């Protein structure tokens, strides 16, 4: 039997496993925060996410993922990277992340977003049914921010139904 972990290592890179084993963003954040609970309908897994904005910047993110290694790692990376970023920057980063998940290599120009650890999730593009996993925290974040903008402060439960393929 083939004992190499070739393709497997593509999906679960060391940095992904590290985020999975010790996810960031678990500490409670101070109010007022906007909350959202996202569900991946494929598997029923859930992310509870809270975000605190300061003007148009993300001040703090907290999240609790009941999910697979991919969704947990993706959420952990998000929690680590986002604080301090403007909403515009977050939007661009999310777009770029979606792109590489759908297998685009970018146009090679220098002004592409720096994906940081998210880069390590590139391998998910080879596992189409798992793309929803990687996007689950992002979709939940988007809804939480929308809730903020609409002045909602109470947690809302909704479903991430973002399509995993174009």
């Amino acid at each position, binding site marked *: *039997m*083939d004992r190499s*972990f070739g*393709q*497997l290592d593509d*999906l*679960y890179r060391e940095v992904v*496993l590290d985020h*999975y084993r010790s996810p960031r963003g678990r500490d409670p954040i101070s109010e007022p925060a906007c909350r959202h609970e996202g569900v991946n309908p*494929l*598997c*029923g*897994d*859930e992310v509870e996410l809270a975000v605190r904005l300061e003007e148009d910047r993300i001040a703090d993110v907290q999240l609790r993922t*009941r*999910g*697979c*290694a*991919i969704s947990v790692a993706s959420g952990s990376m998000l929690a680590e990277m986002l604080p301090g970023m403007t909403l515009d920057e977050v939007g661009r980063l999310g777009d770029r992340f979606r792109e590489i998940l759908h297998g685009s290599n970018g146009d090679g120009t220098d002004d592409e977003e720096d994906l940081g650890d998210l880069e390590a999730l590139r391998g998910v593009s080879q*596992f189409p049914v*798992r793309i929803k*996993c990687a996007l689950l925290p992002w979709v939940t974040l988007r809804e939480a921010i929308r809730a903020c903008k609409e002045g909602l402060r109470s947690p809302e439960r909704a479903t991430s139904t973002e399509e995993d393929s174009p």
Partner: protein
Amino acid sequence: MSVSIERLDVRRIRSDFPILGREVHGHALRYLDNAATTQKPRAVLDALRDYYERHNSNVHRGVHTLAQEATEAYEGVRTRLGRFLGGVEPRGIVFTRNTTEAINLVARSIVEPRIGSGDEILLTEMEHHSNLVPWIQLAKRTGARLRHVPITEDGRLDLDAFDDLLTDRTKLVAFAHASNVLGTINPVERIAERARAKGALTLLDAAQSIPHMPVDARELGVDLLAASAHKMLGPTGVGFLWGRPELLEEAEPMLGGGEMILEVHLDRATWADLPQKLEAGTPNVGDVVAFGAALNYLEAAGLAAIRAHEVELTGYALERLRSLENLRVYGPEDPEHRSGVISFYDETIHPHDLATMLDLRGIAIRAGHHCAQPLMRRLGVPATSRASFYLYNERADVDALVEGLEEARSYFG
């Protein structure tokens, strides 16, 4: 029992299934997702092709040769299935798309006309969504109340609780013969007998039993029984409901249209006799004909032999899985009390991660809620991993599964 049962010639059987020669990620396919759907032997695919290449026509009412041949082939499978179910009347068999449609048909056509608010429908905590949702919908339409037989710690129905829940208000007891998650085989005869004594109808969801063991519809004592061809070597697109003809005769058709009528006026219509009355529109002739070949294949292999093979394989798999630490394995201990379905849960590795990892080794298992979310809640897990066997599986499949699982545990652990 001391009936001597032929052992399956698994090697020969495997050669009848073209897909088993396929590679996945560079490994031979090891298909352990049989509770979701089964693979098809060449004989079934040949029958399908032969039907379309030689006999294809719409059935019933046609005078020309093709129409006669297609009708004979289609109705022939109904008769064939009647024998397969232990010798029931063909007119009590209605072809549907799948088990799900058959259960919905029972809800709309048979139960709805005879139920009202205050009446109760008794289900169980281990049902598939297909045997939950139609009743939730029915309860909403009629005001009837749903009750559920709880399960014990080792994944059996709590029969004492059943006895208490079964009352004069119970109009229907609908339950799975074998659980698609726990593997538990339920004591159908006992349940049916008590239900009958209380005057309640019984509907058996046989989706996970009929493919895997000898089932005699009348001996079980239930009134209605549903299953899917695609889980018993047949093509997708065919399921069936068997019911006592007297019950079906009173049924109010769920679907109206061609084939099911006797006389149609613009403002009124009368229905054909059974079974046409409950089959509206052009039926899935091709797949029903191919389903006949699946029944032949199953009987040639022998349902008792298939059952014995699965018990042996399940026993082996349970033994190996139970030897792993920190792995929860659900359902009854004794393989004689369960079907070839094994669900398990490992705290350290999410079922979907495991399924992906095994897939990279060519091993197909299912991860998720298995269309049994209430049961998942009862078990206290969001999802489980599930391996399920059939006549073409072998010990090497179990070995690969366990080895892959150990690998995954060391990878994530």
